[in-house]
């Protein structure tokens, strides 16, 4: 016999769900398949757990959304690449300095159509996280992304970007190699690439490091993704001098897709499975694939010149 005290697969505010799921697991372990009473109890508990999840998730605070967006089990770029695309070939390097593991890029097919895919990747497990620098790109990462995007333009491949980063890497080497210039250059060039660009925030969209692969014709956010100009912790640290006020900062800044859709910055919120994308990665990937396919069809139908003019007008209208 064991009891669930604190289940690390669940966030703080999900612990009541964890308790129920623990009970279900216990019953399943002790239960005999022929024991009708136990099976009945299990299905009752399962129903209760679903209802509880629904009620908790229908009313998440901004800070709770940030926590879901950063959930250690949340699907990353590589999880989506595997499930959404076929015929994937990863391409490496910026041709100047190195290959940045925090940004993955390559060519693949979406429903048969060749596309360029670029995404930030946090990595799973200690060694991969280190190799990917916890999803914090350095200049060479953004320059690799730029190289691939310019190549996509030459070969008329639409560009799909997946955004998930705690921010561009703040380090000496980043500064020495011109992290500011690398980000700025991407913003400038993406505004005029003659190919459709769809950007999707799949997890954490932190500031310039996110925007550097985030300029395009259509901006999606997954339902529990987050996008901010400074992390709630950073904002809290400046205003309240303590990171403990991050929940207040998250609320004040409006870091969720609902607020950002209202501001006209985000075009579309893509719904997640109950309890977040990590509860059913396949279902999430399937929804995302469907949305990306439809959006791409729509963008493909727009003549390039018109597409670029629309993109530019949109950029110019931010904040109006």
């Amino acid at each position: 016999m064991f009891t669930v005290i604190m289940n690390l697969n669940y966030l703080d505010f999900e612990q009541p769900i964890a308790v129920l799921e623990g009970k279900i697991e216990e019953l399943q372990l002790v239960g005999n398949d022929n024991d009708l009473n136990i099976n009945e109890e299990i299905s009752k508990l399962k129903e209760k757990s679903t209802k509880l999840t629904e009620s908790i998730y229908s009313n998440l605070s901004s800070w709770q959304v940030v926590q879901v967006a950063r959930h250690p089990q949340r699907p990353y770029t590589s999880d989506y690449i595997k499930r959404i695309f076929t015929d994937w070939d990863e391409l490496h390097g910026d041709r100047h300095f190195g290959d940045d593991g925090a940004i993955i890029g390559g060519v693949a097919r979406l429903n048969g159509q060749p596309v360029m895919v670029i995404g930030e990747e946090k990595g799973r497990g200690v060694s991969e996280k280190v190799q990917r620098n916890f999803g914090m790109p350095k200049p060479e990462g953004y320059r690799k992304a730029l190289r691939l995007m310019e190549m996509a333009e030459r070969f008329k491949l639409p560009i799909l970007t997946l955004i998930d980063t705690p921010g561009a890497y703040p380090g000496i080497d980043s500064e020495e190699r011109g992290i500011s210039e690398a980000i700025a250059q991407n913003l400038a060039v993406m505004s005029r690439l003659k190919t459709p660009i769809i950007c999707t925030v799949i997890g954490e969209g932190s500031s310039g490091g996110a925007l550097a692969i985030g300029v395009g014709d259509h901006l999606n956010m997954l339902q529990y993704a987050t996008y901010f100009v400074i992390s709630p912790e950073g904002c809290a640290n400046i205003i309240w001098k303590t990171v403990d006020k991050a929940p207040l900062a998250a609320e004040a800044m409006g870091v969720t897709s609902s607020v950002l859709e209202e501001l006209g910055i985000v075009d579309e919120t893509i719904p997640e499975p109950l309890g977040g994308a990590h509860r059913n990665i396949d279902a999430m990937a399937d929804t995302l694939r469907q949305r990306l396919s439809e959006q791409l069809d729509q963008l493909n139908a727009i003549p390039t010149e018109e597409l670029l003019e629309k993109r530019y007008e949109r950029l110019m209208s931010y904040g109006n």
Partner: protein
Amino acid sequence: MSWLEKLVPSVVRADGKKGSSKVPEGLWKKCVKCSAVLYRPELEKNLDVCPKCDHHMRIGARRRLDIFLDEDRRQEIGTEVEPIDRLKFKDVKKYKDRLSTAQKTTGEKDALVAMKGELKGMPIVAVAFEFAFHGGSMGYVVGERFARAAKIALEENIPLVCFSATGGARMQEALISLMQMAKTSAVIERLKQQGTPYFSIMTDPVYGGVSASLALLGDINAAEPGSRAGFAGPAIIEQTIRQKLPPGFQRAEFLLEHGAIDMIIHRGQMRDKLAGLLAKFTRQGTAPAQPQEEVS
């Protein structure tokens, strides 16, 4: 700890006063670098550069444009653009109140002043950041005024010069601020495609979202001596890598050494230098000569 070390990337301290260059009125001013006590009228004649140690003191946006542009034919751009508190942002104070305080102390509506004018007779658009306003942070007004200024440069095919001094994006406008990075970069890219010169002059300091957009996109990137510019503030980097930063890190000289800027320009030579460069970029014979009123 200096005020700058408290800066965080992409944002600015909510209280713009900290970095303000406001000093009590008086005839004397102390140089923050060499502590020399300077006679104010002399200092002003020297363009607020310390005659003893050559430290370039911070100056406001209007003074910046005033010492840069010719006296005649100046026309301000985008005065009708005023800040909007779309998020109804509130922390310990309302953003609205912070704005009106900043407006009162600086006399500016927001942190960017844009003007069309002339540089030694050459028509030009120039913009300057007001650091005393919310740490020169970029929100909607800064992005929009920059874009409007750039559009005039684009339409009339005349050069655009930007003097930046900023802590980065303004967090009280959250994602709207972030998107100003994309807005300003897109319009600069149009200038580039058209072959209209855009020069970016970084003055102390330039950080965060402005550094990662309009400030590093110049055909010419330059900086005043000793000015600091970078993406992440020194405190954040030290916190991340847990080691002390090398001396001179992120200073103009460091930027030059690492290939981020073309040159360092002394404030006293700014007009001459930029006029000479622009004359070549616009394939004009020579920079129109004018009596040198600057001290070098």
